[in-house]
């Protein structure tokens, strides 16, 4: 027992060192969202193209992605081909939140790069962004057919993230819903 006591400082040191070492490799941007399993905030906003007034009722009635983007956002260009593929192949609808952008710049961006979105909400003053707990574009939320936020991904959604993070999450959600 007394011998064990002798090692306590060393054990303490190694535990602390292990924790700190792990801390070096944690992604500090990947913060838990408090909105998981909560319904999507209520909104009544205009779309980027056509300036139509839309509300929660206009959202897809099946599982979809809500993608926060902006014409100023370089990582958004990186994930853009993936979003295009998802909608072109009909794998999953994507609704956009045009976050803290200017309408004409957003329309230009969609014209140049292609428009993967069913529609994009014009969130010029970032109000919907605040309601969603957004830090900055790009962010992607997975919304189920009941309009409930089920998953949130901060930063780029490329093919790797889609396959390794989203697909398993979607499979699990579908299985859960089939069970109920």
């Amino acid at each position, binding site marked *: 027992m007394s011998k064990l006591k002798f090692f306590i400082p060393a054990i*303490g040191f190694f535990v602390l060192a292990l924790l700190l070492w792990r801390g070096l490799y944690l992604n500090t941007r990947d913060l838990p969202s*408090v*909105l998981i399993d909560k319904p999507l905030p209520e909104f009544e906003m205009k779309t980027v193209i056509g300036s139509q007034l839309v509300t929660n009722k206009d959202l897809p009635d099946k599982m979809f992605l809500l993608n926060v983007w902006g014409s100023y956002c370089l990582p958004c260009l990186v994930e853009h081909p993936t979003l295009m593929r998802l909608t072109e192949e009909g794998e999953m609808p994507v609704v956009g939140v045009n976050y*803290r952008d200017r309408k004409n710049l957003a329309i230009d961006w969609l014209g140049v790069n292609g428009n993967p979105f069913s529609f994009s909400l014009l969130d010029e*003053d*970032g109000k919907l962004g605040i*309601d969603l*707990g957004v*830090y900055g574009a790009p962010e992607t939320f997975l919304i189920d057919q009941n309009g409930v936020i089920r998953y949130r991904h901060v930063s780029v959604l490329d093919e790797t993230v889609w396959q390794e993070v989203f697909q398993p999450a979607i499979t699990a959600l579908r299985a859960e819903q089939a069970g109920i």
Partner: protein
Amino acid sequence: MKNLLLLTVLFSLAGSFSLNAQVDTFQFDTDEQQQRFRRLSDELRCPMCQNTNLTGSSGGVAEDLRREVHRMIMDGFTNAAIEQFMFDRYGDFIFYRPRLRAETVFLWFGPIIFLLFGAWMAYGITRKARIIDIEESDLDSSQQQRLQDLLDKK
């Protein structure tokens, strides 16, 4: 030397300018409202730039949140209601002083636990030292004499 002094003065000025740059763009009816705004934007953390408060951050989301804090103060929200608004959207992370909850207990009391552990260790070590002291003085007179002789020889 003179250059160094000048540099120091310039740097300290630059610091104070950047600190004040983000505030004072909002209109308030009373000083009390303005003080509440300052206190809240000092104590709420910018979600984007992580180690800056709302006052000091030039990030887009911080700008929006300052505007929301201002709006809620002018609309007569209490500080508690404004903090709840932030918590509902950004969670514990938004507070520099997180709420006391099951998830944050270790944050609050961890340091005290470490302090107590350290105190216990220090106590253990000094007590052991005292025991050795006592043991050493536990010599009879002839042994004491020999010890003294040995020390004197040196």
